[in-house]
């Protein structure tokens, strides 16, 4: 039991340590595709380090929400990490504390505080970004729900550790239409929730066009570092849910020996690298959608997930 607790905390450490690397690698690959040289892949670490050593400016017009938010945004992905499989394919200490729906709600709490804090300082761009994030959020919400429903129809559970086994036992289940369509729908969701290109441009700093970026403009110093780190961890956690729960549990440690769990770290990072390559290909080949076309883009995800659900329901 104690070893399960240790591995659970190890997962949190892995997410904290490698989330900035994910951002760095993604940015570097995108720059290479655009035939630029790009910043080093450890640039996000340097940014966070630098921000932690800067002074913080807080508007005296802001409320406690503004001071509290960076901690919430930072902690929330770590809580979700306790619930999901990052390194192991067997349930760990906190695995049954919450299912995928619970994890989704915990992540939504971070988004909720982020939105409030953006409105709090009365910066016009903050409120604009906040309302746009809500627009994307409420279009993505039904897709999340239906993906979870489909998963529970197929696996009979929404505990991530149980779900991941259902896709590969027997192996032909991997090609089940519900599985493939759910993967497609969740991939679109990651693009939307992670502020990736067809929905939002993560590297664009043009005030009128940005969605996610404009919410954090007022944060400085350590608060900005926590927000940045938290955002990177959120993307890392979403990708872990996608790859380890919805795609396959391949590459995860199946036994409790320490060496096996350590070996899982590079394997999981390799999976994430493959995902990042796909992400970069998508981001480099699509143009950012106009704001009111986002509903059509997420409509596709909705259709896909509902198709997955009816196919799994009536498969009998």
């Amino acid at each position: 039991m104690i070893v399960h607790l240790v591995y659970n905390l190890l997962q949190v450490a892995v997410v904290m340590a490698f989330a900035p690397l994910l951002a760095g690698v993604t940015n570097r690959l995108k720059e290479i595709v655009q035939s630029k040289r790009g910043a080093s892949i450890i640039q996000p670490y340097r940014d966070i380090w630098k921000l932690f050593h800067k002074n913080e400016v807080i508007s005296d017009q802001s409320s406690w929400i503004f001071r509290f938010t960076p901690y919430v945004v930072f902690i929330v992905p770590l809580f979700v990490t306790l619930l999901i499989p990052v390194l192991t394919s067997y349930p760990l200490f906190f695995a049954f504390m919450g299912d995928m729906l619970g994890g989704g709600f915990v992540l939504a709490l971070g988004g909720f505080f982020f939105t409030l804090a953006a409105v709090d300082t009365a910066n016009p761009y903050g409120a604009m970004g906040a309302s746009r994030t809500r627009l994307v959020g409420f279009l993505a919400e039904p897709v999340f729900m239906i993906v979870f429903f489909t998963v529970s129809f197929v696996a009979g559970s929404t505990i991530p550790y149980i779900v991941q086994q259902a896709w590969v036992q027997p192996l032909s289940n991997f090609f089940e239409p519900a599985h493939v369509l759910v993967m497609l729908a969740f991939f679109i969701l990651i693009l939307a929730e992670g502020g990736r290109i067809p929905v939002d441009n993560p590297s664009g700093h043009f005030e009128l066009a940005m969605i996610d970026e404009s919410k954090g403009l007022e944060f400085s110093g350590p608060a900005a570092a926590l927000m940045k780190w938290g955002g990177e961890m959120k993307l890392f956690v979403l990708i872990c849910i996608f790859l380890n729960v919805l795609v396959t549990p391949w590459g995860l440690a199946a036994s409790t020996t320490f060496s096996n769990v350590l070996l899982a770290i590079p394997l999981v990072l390799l999976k994430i690298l493959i995902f990042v390559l796909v992400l970069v290909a998508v981001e480099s080949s699509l143009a950012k959608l106009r704001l009111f076309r986002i509903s059509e883009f997420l409509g596709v995800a909705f259709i896909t997930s509902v198709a997955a659900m009816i196919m799994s329901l009536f498969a009998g």
Partner: protein
Amino acid sequence: MAGESFLYQFNALAGGFFLLCTFGMVATRQVQGCLRFFVLQSLFLAASAFVLGLRPLSWHLLAVAAINVVNKPILIPWLLRRTIPEEVHTRREITQVLNIPASLLIALGIAVGAYFLTLPWVSLAGTSYAGVNIPIGLAALLLGAFTLTVRREAVPQLLGLMAMENGAFFTSIAIAPELHLFVELVVAFDVLIAVFVIGVLTTAIHEHIGTTEVGSLAVLREESSR
């Protein structure tokens, strides 16, 4: 048997993508994109026919797959390109009858309805593949009809008609695998002729009134007597 379950899942997967392509035809604005979805849909139909023909081995179904691969993804786009001017292909539909999210929601309702409608037929058909092919085929048929009603451009309307044909085919390969090859060939040529006739008609309309937005040709306007 392991191989059987793999084949079943591959067929179901082809069915899932077939359904998605049909939704894509309802939702895309560009004529070109609609044509691309139709080609993909036909390829998934061919894939399903191929999988169904493998076990038990049925030359009819393999021939159906081959006919589909040649006919729809290659001959029909070629024929459309030959008969209809390039300008029509690059056209974009700005004014739909319904906006895209609304028509997608209705399309979704149609698909779910198709599943409920075919529930009693599936148990009658008896084969395990029927559970996938009958409802999805019917859904594609109804969605094709829906495309016909909501689209205003001529070419997407034609493709809606073709999608209905694809849907009917998708059902028939599961419930009547031993249909005579002659019938399949006749249907394939019929489709080609339909495409050709509608293509020529579209060109004539395009020359006469300068647009292919046939959906707005609802009011009869008498020519003034000279």
